[in-house]
Structure formats: structure tokens, C-alpha cells
């Protein structure tokens, strides 16, 4: 469920990057104060471990499909929230660069969706609330499954929110939520079972690894409850604010305002222009109210007024222009290749 650059608007992508960078800075400061240097290689190698483990696919019994590990909860349980977040962020960064999962602008959102929720919401509020130092494996299993499900539900819902706010997709909010949440319920259950299995396995083989996190780093001493509540309140206000946009009568308002901020400036040749059909299409649709949320059936009703009469002449010039630009781009590439090839061969 990696968010993708192509579905994001710059404003949404930047906002989540700011949140993510702030959290990285906060965690780094926390770790700098408290961490012993033995943690440095442990975190690094564990990051590589999660990265490699995510590449293993396994068959999910009874479904025929295959799944893979996410690892956010395993990290939080073993390393505690701050180190877990840093490790998860590093894993996602390397994935974004090497596997192009999502892209670089979307990386901020992906770290937010897959890193913040397990480390700072689910781990302290759900897992720690259920599991104590002497909890039975069954209790750990229940807590892990619940945590896995909640973390992925929050992540999936954020993906919906980010896509909706960016306004690049045509999907209505309700459909999108119904599409994402059940799928991630299944993924979350699998993630939870795997987390439970791994934690219990490690606990039976090397109990000191897990118990040390539980006993030496009680969250209450580290993070005052006040801060958690402040964070939750902020989260609630943000969600509320975002939701109210969607409840409002003009849901495209946000896209419209984003376009106003970052959109294309006044074109010098706008009047006697080029491919004007396409451009006026895009200008009109941007301010068309309720556009994003229109159902397919209503499309016909609003039909004639919004689209300009197509003009074959301008479309020809648009198509020819596109072809010329692409040809020029490819020609430049081919020329450089040819030139480089010659300079390589001659000496």
C-alpha cells in the first residue's frame, strides 16, 4: 500500500514530509540523549533484516495468495518506539530509492503511514497496555494481532486521506474507504499473526532480548502521558479538519486552493493559444463544484455546459506539437549516445 508520487499533490506530499522530518528529528534527539552506542549496529543490522525479511513471500493458507511481512510492530516491540521509528524510516527510504516503491515525494507519506502509527500510537496505547513483563504467549499473541490490525487500518485510512486531499483520483471517498479498509484488515491480521509468532519465538529462544525492552524502557517514564494526549488531540483536530473539508458542499475547494497556490501562472499566450481545448477543460473542471464526488450517473446531466466545443484544428496542432517535442527529446538522447559511443571507440 505504498503511496505513489503520481497520486499526490505537492502540498499534501510536502505536509507529510514535514511531519515525517519533524518526527525523525525528534526521535534522533531522544535517542542521542538516551542511547548507548551498542544500539547503533543493532539498529542498522535490524533494518537490513527487516528489509530482507520483507522480500520473503509466503503462502497464506486457504487463500492461495501470498503475503509478506511489514515489520513495524516487531521493531516497536523489540526496540521501543523511537529506535523503531528510525529503523522503519530507513528501511522505507532504501526501498524508495532502490525498488522505487512509491517515489521520493511519497516517501514522506509512506514513512508517516507505516512508521508513525505502529511506533507512536499502536505500540504505546495498545500493545503496552495489554502486555506486561510476565505476560503469557497467548496474551502477547492477542496484543500483536490487535496491534497489527489497528496499525494497518490507520495506515490504510491515511492513504485514502492523502489521495483524497491530493485530488488526482476520481474515486469517491466512501468507495475508496470500502476498498482499502477490508483489504488491509486481512493484511493486518496476517501481519499480527506473524508478529506474534516472531515475538514468541524470540522470547522462547532468547528471552532477555524482549524482556529488556519491556523492563528497562517503560514508556510512562519516557513519554509523559500528557504528551501522548496532546499528540492524539492534534491528530483528532487534523482528522476532524480534513473530514470537514469533505463534508463541506464544495469538496473541490481544497484542490482549487492548492492550484491557486502552486498552479500554473498566467500564460502569456493564453488568448490566442495552443491546444486551448485541453487547457480550458482543465481550468473549468478545477472549479466545477462537486466534481470529485460526482457519481457516474450524474455525469450526463452536467454534460454540455462544461466542455468546450472540440476544434479539430487545435487538436492537430496539439498532436503534432507533442510528437515534435517527444521526437526532439529522443533525438537529443540518441545524439548524446552516438557521440559518447564514438569518443569511447576512437581512443
Amino acid at each position, binding site marked *: 500500500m*505504498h503511496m*505513489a*508520487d*503520481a*497520486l499526490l*499533490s505537492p502540498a499534501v*506530499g510536502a505536509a507529510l514530509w514535514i511531519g515525517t522530518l519533524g518526527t525523525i528529528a525528534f526521535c534522533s534527539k531522544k535517542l542521542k540523549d538516551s542511547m548507548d552506542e551498542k544500539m*547503533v*549496529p543493532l539498529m*542498522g543490522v535490524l533494518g*537490513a533484516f527487516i*528489509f*530482507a*525479511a520483507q*522480500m*520473503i513471500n509466503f*503462502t497464506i*493458507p486457504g487463500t492461495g495468495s501470498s503475503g509478506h*511481512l511489514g515489520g513495524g510492530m516487531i521493531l516497536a516491540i523489540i526496540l521501543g518506539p523511537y529506535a523503531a521509528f*528510525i529503523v522503519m*524510516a*530507513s528501511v522505507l527510504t*532504501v526501498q524508495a*530509492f*532502490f*525498488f*522505487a*516503491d512509491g517515489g*521520493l515525494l511519497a516517501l514522506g507519506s509512506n514513512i508517516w503511514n507505516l512508521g508513525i502509527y505502529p511506533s507512536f500510537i499502536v505500540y504505546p496505547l495498545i500493545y503496552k497496555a495489554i502486555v506486561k513483563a510476565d505476560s503469557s504467549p497467548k496474551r502477547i499473541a492477542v496484543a500483536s494481532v490487535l496491534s497489527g490490525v489497528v496499525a494497518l487500518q490507520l495506515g490504510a485510512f491515511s492513504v485514502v486521506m492523502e489521495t483524497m486531499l491530493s*485530488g488526482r*483520483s*476520481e*474515486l469517491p471517498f466512501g468507495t475508496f474507504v470500502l476498498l482499502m479498509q477490508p483489504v488491509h484488515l486481512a493484511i493486518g491480521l*496476517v501481519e499480527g499473526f506473524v508478529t506474534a*509468532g*516472531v515475538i514468541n*519465538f524470540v522470547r522462547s529462544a*532468547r528471552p532477555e532480548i524482549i524482556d529488556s525492552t519491556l523492563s528497562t524502557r517503560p514508556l510512562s517514564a519516557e513519554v509523559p502521558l500528557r504528551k501522548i494526549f496532546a499528540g492524539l488531540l492534534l491528530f483528532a483536530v487534523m482528522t476532524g479538519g480534513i473530514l470537514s473539508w469533505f463534508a463541506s458542499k464544495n469538496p473541490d475547494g481544497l484542490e482549487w486552493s492548492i*492550484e491557486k497556490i502552486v498552479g500554473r501562472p498566467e*500564460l502569456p499566450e493564453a488568448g490566442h*493559444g495552443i491546444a486551448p*481545448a*485541453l487547457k480550458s*477543460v482543465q481550468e473549468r*473542471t*478545477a472549479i466545477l463544484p462537486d466534481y470529485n464526488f460526482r457519481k457516474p450517473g450524474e*455525469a450526463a446531466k452536467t*454534460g454540455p455546459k462544461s*466542455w468546450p466545443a472540440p476544434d479539430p484544428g487545435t487538436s492537430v*496542432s*496539439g498532436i*503534432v*506539437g*507533442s510528437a*515534435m517535442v517527444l521526437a526532439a*527529446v529522443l533525438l*537529443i*538522447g540518441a545524439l*548524446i549516445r552516438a557521440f*559518447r559511443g564514438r569518443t569511447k571507440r576512437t581512443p
Partner: protein
Amino acid sequence: MITFDKAYFNLGYLDTLSYRETFVHRLDPRAKLIATVLFIVTVVSFPKYEVTGLLPFFLFPVLVFSLGDIPVMFILKKVLFVSSFAVFIGIFNPLLDRQTAYSAFGFSVSGGWISFFSIMLKFFLTITSGLLLIAVTSFPGICSAMQKMGMPEIFVSQLLFLYRYLFVLTEEVMRVVRARDMRSFGKKGRGITPFTSLVGTLFLRTVERAEKVYQAMLSRGFGGRLHAVKPYHFRAADAFFLAAAAVLLCLFRMYNVVGMAGRLSSGIF
């Protein structure tokens, strides 16, 4: 879906590409990182129904491909194989937005197809530029650029550490996965329980390895921070590259290049 071995091979190959010696490779990582970010933001900033405005931006990947001597097919295959959430979500646009936006010569195109095509173009451009950045810069280079631009040191050394052990651990995991796939007759294991003990065993080995790594680092005088080997300097060429990229991006964003080419052609013919 690509196999584990293939994914691992791609990882290593992308890494080796970044050690070539070309003009693009020699640029300061900071300049390339900033230019890439500017490029992505500019591409993504185009509104929903923009198609023609995105075409001139293909110049940038083409330039990097050719100047940086990067194999085109390798990157294109990676872009195609990428698990694409964008395609999955974008494909709903043509289904939901059926209003005719554009018609000529008896063909009509709905608004949904235009916005879907726009998403695909943006997807291709942004993903390609990210992969190209790593192919011409190297991951440690990007890490040092991030550190110089103010990324906290702990996060940067975490990235470098992860990257260093990535290949070691992935190779180990690859052997385990091969053995598992053979025992389960080519299927991907036998369910969740064996998978968890597999991951658990790998985890324990990882922790033991981390302890050994730590001992080795201590005996080499590790004091809590990693040092970059290759120092970079921001030279005039880097400043020129960055300025040229920024100016071109602005021009392509503000002026309709395709339209101008179209008018030019109608003037000629």
C-alpha cells in the same frame, strides 16, 4: 511479481551503476538530490487533466540516461515491475469520469482517460527520476548529501549501516528462501507458522551478527559515529547544473512547449 533472486540482483546492479565515472556521476550529490526533488515537485504540481504539459519533462530522464550512460531497458523494466498503487487507483478514473472531454476525427476521449493518462505520465516521470538519482549518485553519496543538508546524524548513520548490511543479510535470506522453496516443492512455504519460525531464526542470527559487528567496530575504535570516506565539494559546475535544471523546469512549467511546437509546425507547413 519478481522473484527474490531477481530483486537481489537488481539491487546490486543498481549499486554498481552508481560507480561509473561520467559527468553526471561526478556532480555533487546535493545538487543532484535538490534537482531531483525540484523535478518531482514540478511534475506533480501539474493539475489533474494535464497531459501535453508533461511531455517536455521527458527531456530530463533522457539527458540523464544518455549523459550518465545508464542502460535504458534495465531502468524501464524496474519501472514496469514496480508494484503500482498508482495504476491500481488511477484506473478508476476512466470508469468514474466518463464525460467526453475531447473529440476529434470521430474519436472521443473521456475526462477520466485524460486524468488517468496524466497519472501514468507522472508515475513514469517520478519513478524514473528516483531510480536515476540512485543510479548516478550512489546511496552513500545521497546519505552524505542529506547529512550536509541537516538530516540528523543518527538517521544518516542508520541508513549507511542498513545499506552496508543489506547485501550480507539479503544473501543469507536468499539461501534460506531457496531451501524453503525446494522443500515445499516450489510453493512459497507451508503457511504462516513455518514462516514465523523462519523469520524468528533469521532475527536471532541477525542479533548475534550485530553483537559481533559491534565487537569488531569497538576494536577498530568506534566512538558512536560513522565517517564518510569520499568528501564532496560543491563546485561551480554543480551550481551551474542546478541553476540550469531549475531554469528549465520553470520554463517547462510556465510555457506550453508542446503548443509552441504545434504552432511552429502549422507556421511551417
